[in-house]
């Protein structure tokens, strides 16, 4: 390898090998990643990589839960980057460790290293020479930096990765024996609840504390400005106390909310920061060029995790300890330090698994809530759990987006110019990114911190609202622009795929529209604007698997869409079939993906299927509901999601790319699924619905 070899991101930040793994004489390897399990199966992929490089059985790999006191700081588990950042770090660290162990074995046995082989940690050499990792564990120090020149196994020599491996956490979840954070009990633990108004920004005007008189088990009523909560001996008591608080609290004011049913004018009229995302200068449009302008709308979406956010906090003499299901324990620690005015090393944040996480949900906010309650009962662990209503209505939302696309189409039917403009709140209000905290309760304290207005990182960092706004197609000219709102009555932050969901919906709807307008097959139209071979391959594979162009059942339609996630990640093409006999119902999705090297192909398939089913739910059913005064989608009745009776069949083909870098799989199916469904509606009815969710009412409205 060349002298310029670069370490994977995780090792660049934390190069010391012993921060990543250790060998135990008892016969196991402890792996300590900074990325966390959020339901996506990352722990299994990391164990696979580690075991493969070390030539040990995967059962010998133990995963240490991430913790700010000991784990490498790997930022946030987000953006479909865990395999490329953390996985490749684990691969190199394990490969280097294997080399160190073999070198020591060769020295002790007085044989060349090349004469040794490893099987499940047992090292054997010529004759009866034998030792093992476990015997050598105390003789080899891993307190040394990672060496970028180390060569991991060649793709063909890998035995565990690239093959489907059962999730290491799944059986425990099926039997109910692997605890979620909600299930953990600590000695002396007490229980907290927080009361929040449904109107964002409302302040606590008055509280009739007499309402809590005689409440069994009450330990502390906590009021700090408009932050209101209580701590009780038992969870049942805390729940009863919360119900009493709800009748005793009067709220006033709050942010005026926009008109849920007419979001575009509001999005386009609010004060905003305008910026050019990307510009490609081309020749002036030639005579005969047609211009099409279309407007698309994506509503606010809720994370809608099945388990409400939860945290456990203990305020001990030596500082604050928090257990959280946050995606970013170090970033959360930074914001907790800001709120409490503590040094970061006075706070330890550990990770415990929560319910499925699809982005920046309420986990971090719940951690601050728990810490605020725990401060009132020093020395006692407080478990805080949000209500279903708060989980749906007070977690950050995925931002609503208005998108306008204008396309110039030449006489040859090729796109000659393209403009894409976005009006949206930012997509990133994660903790730990600024000098001021981004946690919900911090805005409500007696001495409040300023409301943190959601930002968009630059495209090089993945972008936010502008993610996937730049087309991957070979258009000769484009102008991509963005208007990031500077007001934020409804709090928005990162939700799976970020802006890519809305942008790909718009781009791929528009491509379909132009193709149909000129009587061209949408697949052929895309392919003649697409020179990227990997992009063409997934489109062709999805189309072939769906028998694209073949007969479609009466009352149904099929649509096609494609994107490369972030334009640098996984390629994904989707053919969707929809039935329009009643409410639109997705019947089948045929998906082809290229994720580069797939560490665990079954894990990739699970992520793609899950992402596509979730995106089907977003596209056909979901929209945060609110009046001018409060968020009203605060239960599963008012925020319905896709159910078992409505779920489409999904087939996933993974294009094998064992020799190419892994690209991540978690978010690539979202945008293409939405557009494929919209295009399927058009194929069936000849109607374009440019506003999600695509409901029967919206279809009827689009017909008129």
């Amino acid at each position, binding site marked *: 390898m060349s002298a310029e070899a670069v370490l994977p991101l995780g090792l660049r930040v934390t190069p010391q090998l012993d921060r990543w793994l250790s060998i135990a004489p008892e016969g196991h390897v402890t792996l300590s990643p900074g990325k966390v399990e959020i339901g996506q199966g990352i722990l299994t992929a990391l164990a696979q990589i580690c075991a493969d490089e070390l030539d040990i059985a995967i059962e010998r790999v133990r995963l240490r839960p991430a913790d700010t006191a000991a784990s490498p700081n790997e930022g946030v588990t987000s953006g479909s980057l865990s395999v490329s950042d953390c996985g490749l770090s684990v691969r190199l660290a394990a490969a280097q460790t294997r080399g160190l162990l073999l070198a020591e074995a060769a020295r002790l046995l007085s044989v060349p290293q090349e004469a040794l082989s490893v099987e499940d940690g047992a090292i054997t050499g010529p004759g009866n020479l034998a030792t093992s990792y476990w015997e050598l564990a105390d003789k080899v120090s891993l307190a040394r930096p990672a060496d970028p020149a180390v060569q991991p196994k060649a793709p063909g020599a890998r035995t565990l990765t690239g093959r489907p491996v059962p999730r290491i956490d799944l059986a425990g979840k099926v*039997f*109910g024996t692997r605890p979620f954070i909600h299930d953990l009990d600590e000695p002396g633990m007490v229980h907290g609840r927080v009361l929040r108004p449904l109107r964002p920004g409302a302040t606590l005007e008055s509280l009739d504390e007499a309402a809590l008189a005689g409440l069994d088990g009450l330990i502390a009523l906590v009021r700090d400005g408009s932050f209101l909560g209580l701590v009780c001996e*038992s969870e049942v008591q805390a729940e009863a106390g919360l119900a009493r608080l709800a009748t005793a609290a009067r709220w006033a004011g709050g942010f005026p909310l926009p008109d849920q049913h007419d979001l575009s004018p509001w999005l386009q009229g609010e004060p905003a920061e305008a910026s050019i995302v990307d510009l490609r200068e081309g020749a002036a449009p030639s005579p005969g060029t047609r211009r099409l302008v279309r407007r698309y709308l994506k509503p606010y979406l809720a994370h809608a995790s099945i388990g409400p956010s939860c945290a456990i906090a203990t305020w001990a003499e030596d500082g604050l300890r928090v257990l959280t299901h946050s995606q970013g324990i170090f970033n959360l620690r930074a914001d907790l330090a800001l709120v409490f005015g503590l040094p970061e090393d006075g706070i330890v944040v550990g990770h415990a698994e929560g319910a*499925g996480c699809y982005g920046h949900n309420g986990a971090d906010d719940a951690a601050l809530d728990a810490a605020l309650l725990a401060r009132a009962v020093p020395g006692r662990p407080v478990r805080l759990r949000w209500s279903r209503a708060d989980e749906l209505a007070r977690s950050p939302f995925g931002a609503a987006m208005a998108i306008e696309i204008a396309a110039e189409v030449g006489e040859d039917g090729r796109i000659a110019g393209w403009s894409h403009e976005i009006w949206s709140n930012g997509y990133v209000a994660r903790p730990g990114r600024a000098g001021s905290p981004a946690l919900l309760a911090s805005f409500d304290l007696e001495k409040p911190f300023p409301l943190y207005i959601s930002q968009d990182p630059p495209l090089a960092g993945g972008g936010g609202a502008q993610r996937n706004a730049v087309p991957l197609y070979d258009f000769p000219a484009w102008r991509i622009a963005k208007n990031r709102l500077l007001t934020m009555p409804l709090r928005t932050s990162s939700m799976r795929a970020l802006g890519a969901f809305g942008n790909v919906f718009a781009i791929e709807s528009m491509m379909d529209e132009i193709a149909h307008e000129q009587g061209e097959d949408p697949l052929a139209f895309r392919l003649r604007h697409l020179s990227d071979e990997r992009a063409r391959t997934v489109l062709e594979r999805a189309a072939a698997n769906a028998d694209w162009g073949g007969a479609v059942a009466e009352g149904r339609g099929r649509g096609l869409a494609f994107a490369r996630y972030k334009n640098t990640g996984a390629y994904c093409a989707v053919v969707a079939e929809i039935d329009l006999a009643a409410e639109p119902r997705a019947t089948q999705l045929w998906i082809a993906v290229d994720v580069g090297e797939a560490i665990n192909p079954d894990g990739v398939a699970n992520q793609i299927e899950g992402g596509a089913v979730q995106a089907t739910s977003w596209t056909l059913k979901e929209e945060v509901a609110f009046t001018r005064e409060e968020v009203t989608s605060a*239960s599963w009745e008012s925020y319905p999601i896709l159910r*078992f009776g409505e779920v489409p069949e999904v087939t996933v083909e993974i294009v094998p790319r064992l020799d190419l870098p892994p690209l991540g799989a978690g978010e690539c199916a979202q945008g293409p699924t939405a557009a494929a469904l919209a295009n399927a509606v058009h194929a069936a009815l000849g109607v374009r619905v440019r506003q999600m969710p695509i409901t029967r009412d919206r279809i009827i409205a689009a017909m008129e």
Partner: protein
Amino acid sequence: MEAGTRLTVNGAGLTVNAVPETMLLDVLRGELGLKAARFGCGEGLCGACRVLVDGHPVASCNTPLWSVAGRAVTTPEGLGTADAPHPVQAALIAEQAAQCGYCISGIVVSAAALLARSPDPDDAAIRAALDPNLCRCGAHNRILRAVRRAAAMRDRAA
């Protein structure tokens, strides 16, 4: 004072001291330490807290303790263990049919109840039986396959 509520949980008769208005889920997760049934919404709308009462799936989050006095409650722990899995549990593992797993114990309960009354359900019957259970990760198709597999396993065992 109440003398306590008698009921059977996972085959064992016992007396619970909680007040009769306490929700069954709180009794299971609190006093009895059975954590596999999970809180999701508190309104009986998501299925994460489902248990069997006399063989019928119910939402334990809004079922008061008094209403199960004298009845037989089966939680996910009572359906099977790693050493002796219920066919639905074995099939879910074989199909790798979960992502986060928060909803899965409630789904085990719904599917076990279905197979107990209908050993060879068709696709529509499986979907109908699982319709009260929400899954946000999108593992539905794997779960449906697992329930079909479990039905086939029971067929072979019969």
